[in-house]
């Protein structure tokens, strides 16, 4: 009885109480506002109180208490409550406030009714009540434009609703009942499903009925948040879940049609969002696009997808409400909705900006925000259903999501102000936005509760996203390496970052990065691994962003590239988990043929992008210029290589069985070889210390990829060894670069020179690290490279040549770098440069020492760090430490190094300075033109990709406009023709009227006499 009373009060109090609000409002505004708050808090509390009884299935009147209804009620009431709170300040200045509160509370009350409804007609009644309320809410401002848009929304949704009503009548005919619980398991014919879908698609604004939603952005922001983000558009998906998941069985064909439609919707809306310039329209299109994800999850007939879809309702509701409410603050304070007029608002409204970004991340599905889990589960579900094209379209949609939200954030908050100034919103409004952002974040902590609740709702066991770690040798040593280097970089930064304004943020992001990276290295659960792995995106963005005035462009670039590839990784992990039937990484072992090959390919994209191999590398050189140097030393220099290669090794050796004869092995080697040569070629011509190093950071990855790609023991060991070595010497190199920057204030080689005498220890460390990277014995780089050569030669001389050629160019470029920076004549303006302080020296010296130790005693790393990773079977009969056994290879390497030295000598002689040592290569005919093009970023995959995306967005936007004109223009046109015809027929001529009647009678008579 108690539960029944709770349901009734959750529905009836707001519905009836809403009509009291205008009366109270006449008397006191304050009381009305709080009464409205209370009327929405009540269903929230009542629904929360129903949680323990959620699985009882108790019924009262036409309402039912079941897990689905309680979940949805909680979600809508929670978001509604925050929005109403926000309205207190937002709506304060406008007319018709009484009507506003009446409609908002009525809307939420009807929503409760709809959610708890167990009767088709009751469902329909509440469905239309929400339509009426939203009609008045959208037309809140009452000028012709707004009312017209409100009418459009009303008409489109009413059209769909009536079709749905017809289907309900059809269901009644078939079953003789209207109670949903009475028709569980009934299979609906295609026609009825199509009719219901028409209703659902109009309400949930999905292609081809979606255009009313962006148009309805004319409403006040709390309304758009309430209707278009949080609650109204969720009605459709909720009813979908209620009817097609909890009640009816549907034909298998719908499991393809609906996801396909949703995929089209996701893409078209995302394209439109990329083109629009009105902030609220962009967010509204984003809603259309995200709703499609929910449909995907719910429609693919797969428990993981279903739970993901429902979870998506919650996560998207929170985050999208936050976005709309932020947009409300912006709109109210800037008096415009045009994002091309905004810019730089982060300075004046920081909290809104951060909250906006957090919510945007949640919508994109970036950890640690809750949106990550829902997006993962939906895509995992789609992968499981085996509908690859659709899943692919959704991955593309998710990529576009990242792009349009970032574009929005950048245009509104970053860069220079473009004429509009604004201040922060009122504390209440900003507080609400921050609360939503916080909830998006907090959801992560308790993520298992909703997921397991929903799994149970559909009668399944827990999904098991657990904090499952494994402490095997490889993971531990990767994590250890990360921590050690991070500690050294931190020590170094104590001096380097001193006095910089963003130092607090720097350490925060740095150690968050470490935590996430260590988590990724130790994770033994695919979802946990992905969470940590993708979490790095956030700190990546932050670390680059704090670099300076213009570094946000690079931050966006890095975020985009890594984010997009992470989504591929997400899809790959989802597929892997499905194929392997387990989420535990250690239990997975798949061949690389057929489906698993695809999974492997997707995972490969993620791993290579993290490691910074081509073609996912292009943010690194940009970051070298913009980001703080310790970041470069730590993240692209060490951490990303460690993690990327760590994961590459994991997938190639453990989770999948990469064999030398597989084409994927060749693919890896080609990527590795190309990366070596192309990146080092670019490094060769750089005139900036950091940028030159950054290209090497890319080039060195090539060796590791090549090594592992060979899939033969020598190559694999070499690749892994190179990974360790690279982390060491590359960090050391970047740190020396930082020391130079600290003392001289620049890293431009044109302005440097002769620092060797002023900074001897730095110079010494530089020499050791440079020799190591060039592969000079007896340093560590030599030994790992030799192993890679050995492996490459075993697979084909061409790969060997690429590797050796890379070594030549590496040596040449470092000769140039060292010469230009440390030798020659000291530059006049750096006369008083001196050695840096000990906290900066210590990490450099330490790393250089490691280079030496790991070189001379290479048995240490190989025997104690690397070999335990690999199976004894693989290692049998090989000997990897000590001096290389193949003397011929050593001879070739020596020749190559000598050649580099000669080349340097020739170049210096020719150009007269160290910096010009490779000019003869740079300006060689043919190469010269190619370099020029490369400098103009013609080959930058990012730029190419953006062009492609812009073209795609243009096309999608055209499709969107076409659909809009069909709804907006052509239906009206056709109706007008009809109207004109009727008017023309009513000319007022009585004879005409009599004639029609007589003709009508004659026809009737004829029919009667027939």
């Amino acid at each position: 009885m108690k539960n029944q009373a709770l349901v009734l009060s959750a529905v009836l109090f707001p519905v009836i109480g809403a009509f009291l609000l205008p009366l109270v409002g006449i008397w006191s505004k304050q009381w009305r506002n709080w009464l409205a708050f209370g009327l929405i808090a009540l269903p929230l509390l009542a629904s929360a109180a129903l949680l323990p009884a959620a699985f009882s299935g108790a019924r009262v009147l036409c309402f039912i208490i079941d897990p689905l209804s309680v979940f949805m009620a909680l979600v809508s009431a929670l978001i509604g409550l925050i929005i109403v709170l926000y309205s207190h300040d937002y709506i304060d200045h406008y007319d018709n406030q009484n009507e506003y509160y009446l409609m908002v509370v009525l809307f939420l009350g009807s929503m409760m009714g709809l959610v708890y409804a167990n009767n088709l007609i009751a469902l329909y009644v509440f469905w239309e009540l929400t339509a009426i309320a939203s009609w008045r809410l959208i037309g809140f401002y009452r000028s012709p434009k707004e009312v017209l848009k409100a009418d459009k929304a009303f008409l489109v949704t009413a059209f769909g609703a009536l079709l749905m009503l017809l289907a309900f009548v059809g269901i009644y005919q078939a079953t003789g009942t209207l109670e949903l619980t009475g028709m569980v398991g009934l299979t609906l014919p295609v026609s009825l499903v199509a009719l219901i879908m028409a209703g659902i698609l109009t309400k949930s604004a999905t292609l081809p009925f979606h255009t009313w939603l962006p148009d309805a952005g004319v409403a006040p922001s709390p309304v758009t948040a309430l209707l278009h983000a949080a609650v109204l558009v969720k009605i459709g998906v909720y009813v979908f879940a209620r009817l097609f998941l909890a009640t009816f069985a549907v034909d298998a064909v719908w499991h393809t049609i609906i996801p396909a439609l949703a995929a089209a919707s996701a893409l078209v809306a995302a394209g439109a969002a990329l083109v629009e310039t009105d902030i609220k329209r962009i967010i509204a299109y984003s809603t259309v696009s995200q709703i499609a994800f929910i449909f995907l999850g719910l429609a693919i007939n797969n428990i993981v997808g279903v739970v993901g879809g429902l979870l998506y309702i919650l996560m998207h509701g929170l985050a999208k409400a936050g976005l709309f409410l932020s947009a409300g603050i912006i709109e109210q304070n800037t008096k415009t909705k045009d994002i091309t007029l905004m810019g730089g608002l982060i300075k004046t409204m920081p909290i809104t900006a951060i909250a906006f970004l957090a919510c945007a991340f949640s919508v994109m599905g970036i950890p640690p925000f809750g949106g990550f889990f829902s997006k993962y589960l939906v895509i995992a579900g789609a992968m499981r259903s085996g509908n690859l094209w659709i899943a692919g379209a959704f991955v593309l949609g998710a990529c576009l999501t990242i792009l349009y939200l970032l574009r929005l954030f950048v245009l509104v908050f970053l860069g220079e102000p473009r004429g509009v100034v604004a201040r922060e919103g009122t504390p209440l409004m900003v507080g609400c936005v921050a609360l939503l952002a916080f909830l998006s974040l907090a959801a992560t902590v308790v993520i298992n509760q909703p997921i397991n609740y929903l799994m149970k709702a559909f009668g399944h066991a827990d999904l098991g996203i657990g904090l499952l770690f494994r402490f095997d040798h490889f993971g531990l040593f990767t994590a250890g390496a990360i921590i050690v280097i991070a500690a050294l970089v931190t020590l170094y930064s104590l001096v380097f970052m001193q006095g910089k304004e963003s130092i607090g943020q720097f350490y925060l992001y740095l150690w968050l990065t470490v935590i996430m990276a260590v988590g990724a290295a130790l994770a033994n659960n695919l979802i946990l691994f992905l969470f940590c792995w993708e979490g790095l995106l956030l700190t990546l963005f932050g670390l680059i962003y704090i670099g300076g005035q213009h570094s946000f462009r690079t931050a966006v670039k890095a975020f985009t590239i890594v984010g997009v590839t992470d989504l591929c990784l997400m899809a790959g992990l989802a597929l892997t988990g499905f194929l392997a039937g387990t989420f535990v990484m250690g239990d997975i072992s798949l061949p690389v043929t057929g489906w698993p090959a695809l999974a492997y390919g997707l995972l490969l994209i993620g791993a290579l992008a993290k490691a910074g191999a081509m073609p996912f590398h292009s943010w690194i050189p940009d970051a070298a210029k913009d980001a703080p140097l310790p970041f470069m030393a730590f993240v692209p220099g060490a951490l990303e290589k460690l993690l990327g290669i760590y994961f590459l090794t994991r997938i190639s050796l453990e989770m999948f069985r990469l064999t030398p004869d597989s084409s994927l092995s060749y693919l890896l080697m080609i990527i590795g070889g190309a990366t070596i040569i192309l990146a080092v070629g670019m490094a060769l011509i750089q005139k900036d210390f950091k940028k030159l190093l950054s290209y090497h950071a890319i080039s060195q990855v090539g060796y590791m990829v090549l090594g592992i790609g060979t899939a033969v023991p020598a190559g694999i060991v070499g690749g892994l060894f190179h990974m360790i070595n690279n982390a060491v010497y590359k960090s050391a190199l970047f740190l020396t670069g930082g020391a130079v920057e600290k003392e001289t204030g620049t890293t431009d080689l044109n302005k440097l020179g002769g620092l060797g005498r002023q900074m001897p220890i730095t110079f010494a460390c530089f020499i050791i690290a440079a020799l190591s990277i060039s592969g000079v014995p007896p340093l560590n780089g030599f030994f790992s490279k030799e192993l890679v050569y050995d492996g490459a030669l075993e697979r084909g001389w061409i790969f060997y040549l690429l590797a050796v050629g890379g070594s030549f160019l590496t040596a040449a470029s470092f000769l140039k770098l060292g010469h230009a920076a440390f030798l020659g004549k000291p530059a006049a303006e750096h006369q008083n440069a001196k050695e840096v302080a000990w906290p900066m020296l210590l990490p450099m010296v330490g790393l250089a020492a490691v280079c030496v130790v790991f070189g001379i005693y290479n048995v240490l790393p190989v025997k104690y760090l690397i070999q335990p990773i690999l199976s004894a079977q693989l290692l049998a009969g090989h000997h990897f430490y000590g001096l290389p056994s193949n003397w011929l290879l050593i001879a070739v390497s020596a020749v190559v190094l000598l050649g580099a030295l000669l080349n340097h000598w020739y170049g210096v002689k020719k150009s007269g300075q160290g910096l010009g040592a490779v000019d003869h290569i740079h300006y060689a005919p043919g190469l010269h033109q190619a370099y020029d093009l490369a400098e103009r970023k013609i080959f930058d995959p990012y730029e190419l990709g953006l062009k492609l995306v812009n073209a795609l967005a243009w096309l999608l936007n055209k499709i969107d406009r076409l659909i809009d004109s069909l709804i907006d223009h052509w239906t009206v046109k056709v109706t007008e023709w009809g109207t004109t015809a009727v008017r023309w027929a009513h000319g007022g001529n009585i004879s005409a009227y009599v004639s029609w009647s007589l003709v009508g009678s004659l026809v009737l008579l004829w029919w009667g006499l027939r």
Partner: protein
Amino acid sequence: MTYLLLLLPLAALVIMNLLPGRFRVRSALLITGAVCIIQIGLVLVHPTGFWDRLIIAQLEPVLGFNLQITWLALVMMAVAGLVSLAALLVAAALWQREFELLNFSSLLLIALIGMNGIAMVNGLFQLYIFIEVTALATFILICLRRDRFAFEGVWKYLLLSVVASVLMLTAVGLSLIFSPSSTFLALRATIPLAAGSFLPRAAIALFLSGLLIKSGVVPFHGWLPDAYQAAPAPVSVLLAGVITKATGVFALIRFVAEVTGPAPVYQVLLLTGALSVVVGALGALGQTDVKRLLAYSSISQVGYIIMALGAGTTFGLIAAMFHFFNHAIFKSQLFANAAALEARAGSTDLNKISGLGGRMPVTSVTLLIGSLSTAGLPPLAGFWSKLAVIMALWLAGQSLYAFIAALASVLTLAYFLFLQRKLFFNKLSPELSGVKEAGPLLLAPAVGLAALTVIIGLALPVYWLLGGR
């Protein structure tokens, strides 16, 4: 004692015309109002025992008019009483001149007699006569104010009514050839016997077309918009709310329910009904005058009733009567709103008036309720009847017509949204800045009927939920 419903208005008519001069108008209004209320009361307490136990029952042999009360008649008479009362209130609010008020009340009573007759008679010829009584009273009512415009409107109505009369009379004549009398009972019995002959079918076709003209169903509807628009405000309430419904639609319902029966008639009804629904709605979309728009809307809504009837099932008949009742309620309410607009803003032309939402809040809210009810939005009364219509059509296997019925609701919604937008939401035109809300007498019918719409809309599901079904 059914004749009480005929004799009571007649007696009232005589009495109020014989009263002395000073109190004439006021008492005429009171008496007419009382008749309406008594009629509603009599209908509400309709248990058959009540009718028989009255002393006047002894006059039955002398005065018994051979009438019968069915549930159809009860609904019709309740509607007639309600709408007449509303029209009377509107007239009392708008008009002052004794001449107009007195004649209005008298003619209203005659029309009421006619409608009660239509509700209770049980023969074709009687039906025809009472239709004529009502129609004649209506003609005069429309030109009560004698402006040119009204004459033009009534002329069209009159002409087509005459055509209808000829057709119906011919049908009665034909029916007397094959049947001993023109009572429904006799016709019902003889039509199947004479099935081979063309006469019954010709009679049915002719009577049907006469009634379709009277109902204003497409393509027999040419007169309707002009007549509705031309009629003075109180008369338009009466005309749209109940008179054309009684003389046309209700008579049609009785004719179909009690006389014809065979399926071909249903096909005609479905076809013309669907045509009306669509053409009426399209016509309404193009109008810029409130009353004309409502007139087209009437055509459209009548289409629903006819379609439901065409379903040919008992459920269809119930749905038709339900929608008939609701339509009378909300359409007369909408015309009462139009009367308020005309009285206060001086026009019903949408190009001249706009932005009145803040000025006339009660009118705006009631008009919204009426509109949404017409468009079939839950939880208002119109939704339930429209749902019943759609269900009846679908369950009768006419799913195509169910589709038309459902989708035409979008058009209905479209023209009402257009009306709302023009009337209440745009900018207030400057010359209307002094407009005030109408007086209580004029608002009373609008508010009362709107409340009825809401109450019926809410009571039904509550009754249903509490286990009624």
